[in-house]
């Protein structure tokens, strides 16, 4: 019955363990991680490091933002909003890129963890998009004079937020999880056209939003350093949350499989009777 065992003995009759080792070494890293049990083991060890790393780096970023960073020559202290706005906006797009890559992995390679990754990243990406919109709005009011304008950048990021909500709604609207995963992956890949539009909206069209705050030289070092530290902290936090979300999803699928197995066994134990009475 256990197919894995039979394959191992087939590799090397004399020393099955050595054969198993060799078989594992031949696997690529993604193949190794594809095994949910090994994923749970590795992610369980990695998660505390990520969590504490992100917490301490975000604490450092807060210190830099409030006690070290100078006010901007135009915007005064309001520039501090940038330290959360810009990392949130970066992560909003990065999370979507991750969902798109995972969707590709699901549709093309049928990678067992690809859908888990895509599903776990959606609410986190939506949260960072919301943060980018809200902090941007709170930045726009005192600086531009308006909470919201319908320029190309703001509108395309709002569309990204709705796209995240759409992905989650589409998935939850279907009973059949495998079908839901595939259709959601297709929508995610269609939506990927939004990423370059958001990125280049400030260059292609004139907008009220200023051109992108890249890692270019347009930000003075004294303001860039807190921004970068904050971005690293936010990214680690994102990966910690994504890993946690993936772990939760793996557990949820195990629970579901066990419940199914329990029902099947109860029916089997009925000895051919039409239906086993519920407990």
């Amino acid at each position, binding site marked *: 019955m*256990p197919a894995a065992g039979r394959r191992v003995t087939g590799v090397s009759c004399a020393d099955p363990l050595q054969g198993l080792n060799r078989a594992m070494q031949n696997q690529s890293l993604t193949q190794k991680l594809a095994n949910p049990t090994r994923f749970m083991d590795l992610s369980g060890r990695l998660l505390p490091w990520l969590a504490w790393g992100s917490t301490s780096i975000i604490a450092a970023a807060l210190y830099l933002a409030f006690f070290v960073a100078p006010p901007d020559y135009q915007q005064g202290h309001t520039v501090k909003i940038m330290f959360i706005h810009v990392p949130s906006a970066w992560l909003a797009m990065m999370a979507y890129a991750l969902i798109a890559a995972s969707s590709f992995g699901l549709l093309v390679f049928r990678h067992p963890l690809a859908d888990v990754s895509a599903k776990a990243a959606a609410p986190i990406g939506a949260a960072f998009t919301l943060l980018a919109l809200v902090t941007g709005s709170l930045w726009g009011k005192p600086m531009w004079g308006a909470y919201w304008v319908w320029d190309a950048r703001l509108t395309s990021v709002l569309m990204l937020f709705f796209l995240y909500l759409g992905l989650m709604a589409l998935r939850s609207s279907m009973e059949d999880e495998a079908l839901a995963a595939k259709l959601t992956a297709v929508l995610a890949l269609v939506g990927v056209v939004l990423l370059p539009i958001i990125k280049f909206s400030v260059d292609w069209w004139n907008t009220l939003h200023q051109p992108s705050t890249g890692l270019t030289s347009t930000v003075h070092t004294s303001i860039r350093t807190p921004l970068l530290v904050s971005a690293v902290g936010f990214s680690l936090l994102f990966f910690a949350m994504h890993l946690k979300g993936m772990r939760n999803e793996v557990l949820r699928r195990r629970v579901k499989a066990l419940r199914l197995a329990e029902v099947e066994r109860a029916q089997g134990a009925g000895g051919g009777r039409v239906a086993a009475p519920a407990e």
Partner: protein
Amino acid sequence: MDLGPHAVFIVASYLGAAAVLAALIGWLVLDGRRQARALEELEARGVRRRSRGG
């Protein structure tokens, strides 16, 4: 600390970010506990995955 005339917007941004992230982390932790408990209950009842139990 003097944050200038727009202190209210700065503070609101940071508090908003803290609230959104705290809600997300809280949901992740609670969801993880719920799944772990459900799994424990099932295993305590003797339900095994095929790959483990044969």
